[in-house]
């Protein structure tokens, strides 16, 4: 993976530190062109990977890039699925079966309805595969080296101890998309242990890593110990601890840790993107001896 991945929260009104800011961002990025311009700004600064939730609008970005193949020749998408609120709202509105019907390809729905609930209840992993396919449709033709499961699903399954579903996801994206599986989690040490027990070695895990310990469940010390002693490929997210940390301190901390292969961040302006990229490069040089 590349050292720096560009995130999408700012484009879609996700802000962990302020509901008010998130609404202002939704207004700013109302048009797809505004998103594309920011991605181009990041690209000009050497950031060629976009880690994004499977919102419908991401499909428009993919279409744009496919129309300009020369410009985006070495560009990569890191899809994160599913967009949970889409399903949560659908379940509230239509019920679990209704939501499945709504989001699954037509043939499968009619076949399970014909086969009845017995068939459905036996084949959860096929349902998972069909939902992955539905979410991956928009990425047809673009490069997707790693496909991620969102933390709300990863952590739900982790808590339910349904690790076999995570393993099945891991195997399926490899088989069907020749991609590596990634897991986003707010419970990194616990997830890594669970995956290792099922024989998945050196997994790609995207998780909160910040100097203030924000959303590092189980504690910052446990995260540091896990990073120092275990084998894994970590993408650090929420490196600014939800937006209240001094950027220098935040980046210095993340760059000083071992096993952090990539750093994920998002920003709205070219100036902010540039200053974060510069900081990462500066501290990477300073911590060149750290194993990544």
């Amino acid at each position, binding site marked *: 993976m590349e050292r720096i991945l560009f995130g999408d929260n700012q484009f879609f009104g996700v802000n962990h530190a302020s509901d008010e800011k998130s609404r202002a961002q939704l207004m700013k990025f109302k048009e797809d062109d505004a998103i594309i311009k920011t991605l181009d700004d990041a690209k000009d600064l050497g950031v060629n990977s976009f880690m994004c939730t499977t919102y419908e609008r991401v499909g428009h970005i993919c279409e744009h890039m496919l129309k300009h193949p020369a410009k985006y020749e070495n560009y990569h998408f890191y899809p994160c699925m599913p967009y949970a609120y889409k399903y949560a709202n659908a379940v509230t*509105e239509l*019920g679990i079966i209704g939501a499945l019907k709504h989001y699954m390809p037509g043939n499968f729905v009619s076949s399970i309805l014909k086969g009845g*609930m017995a068939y459905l209840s036996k084949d959860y992993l096929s349902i998972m595969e069909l939902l992955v396919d539905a979410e991956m449709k928009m990425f047809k033709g673009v490069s997707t080296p790693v496909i991620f499961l969102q933390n709300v699903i990863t*952590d*739900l399954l982790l808590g339910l101890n*349904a690790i076999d579903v995570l393993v099945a996801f891991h195997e399926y994206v490899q088989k069907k998309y020749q991609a590596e599986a990634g897991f986003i989690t*707010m419970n990194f040490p616990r997830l890594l242990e669970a995956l290792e027990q099922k024989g998945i070695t050196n997994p790609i895990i995207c998780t909160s890593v910040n100097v203030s310990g924000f959303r590092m*469940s189980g504690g910052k010390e446990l995260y540091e110990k896990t990073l120092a002693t275990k084998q894994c490929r970590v993408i650090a997210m929420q490196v600014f601890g*939800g*937006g209240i940390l001094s950027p220098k301190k935040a980046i210095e901390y993340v760059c000083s840790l071992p096993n952090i292969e990539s750093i994920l961040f998002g920003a709205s302006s070219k100036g902010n993107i540039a200053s974060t990229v510069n900081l990462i490069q500066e501290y990477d040089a300073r911590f060149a001896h750290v194993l990544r």
Partner: protein
Amino acid sequence: MVKVALIGAGKMGISHLSILGTHPNVELVGVCDISSLVTDFLSKFSAYPCFSDYHKMIEKTKPEAVFVAVPTRQHYEIIKFLLEKDIHVFAEKPFTLKPEHSYELKQLAQSKSLVNQVGYHNKFMGTFKELKELVNQNLIGDLYHFTGEAYGPVITKKKTGDWRSSPKEGGGCLLDYASHVIDLINDTLSPIVKARGTVLKSIYSEHVDDAVYSILELESGLSGILSVNWSEETYRKMSTSISIFGTKGKIICDATELKVYFKKAPSFKNYTKGWNVKSVVSLEEPVDFYLRGEEYSAQVDYFIDAVQHKELRPVNNFESASKTDQAIYLIRQNQLG
């Protein structure tokens, strides 16, 4: 270890189950749901003993505590059954559909010294906890007005659907979204004793309200406005906020931020004159397992700890939840005239 069972593995139930599954002091002895789609999954992947009849589950697994996350209509019967069997209860919100039922269950739990809690999770959020502390410290002078609001995109087009669209099942914006705001007002400020000028508006739903607007009067004499709408697609997810206006300042609080304006510097924590903005990032206490928000784990930890210590605790107990049900009743009655 506390032996825990769950009745109702829907959206909230599954979330509780996942949090309980990682709790170091919990042994999950059974899950009950009428949907085989859910129970087959849990049997197969999580290896939990699953049931479709809660009577059988209780008899067989003998839990010390049970989480009840079925539609509200069924709460009264199930919770009464559990309390009579001397089982500690965590119930999802709202508590019941009738104030007299809520009162009866509250009395029963208290008389048997059983731990009782309802899932109004906002009260476990860092920002709303700090809000309550600020109000208790009397820092913004004499209060003269408040607003309680919640907006989100649950029902954004015409539909006929599941239990959330039926008032008899406990559906509708008043019982769902608004109950959170009503509960926060009751707890943070003072219990609601009167509702005036209430409008329950159906925007897309046929049988239930999609928005609730009302002027509320509190026991303390303070009055304010309730404005809640779950058909608001300009919000990505539910957003709840409380604003409080006083002679010495003003507080605006939502799940992510607490903004306080002081006319003069108070001698409390590190607050200063003028605007103070505190983010959830600095106010939230970390949890051992995170799913959807610290508050969901925090409320489960609080309940399990109370059960382990056989101690009745004040936050979100049946008493406070039955006051919320009473307020919901007052608001509905006011609309009916």
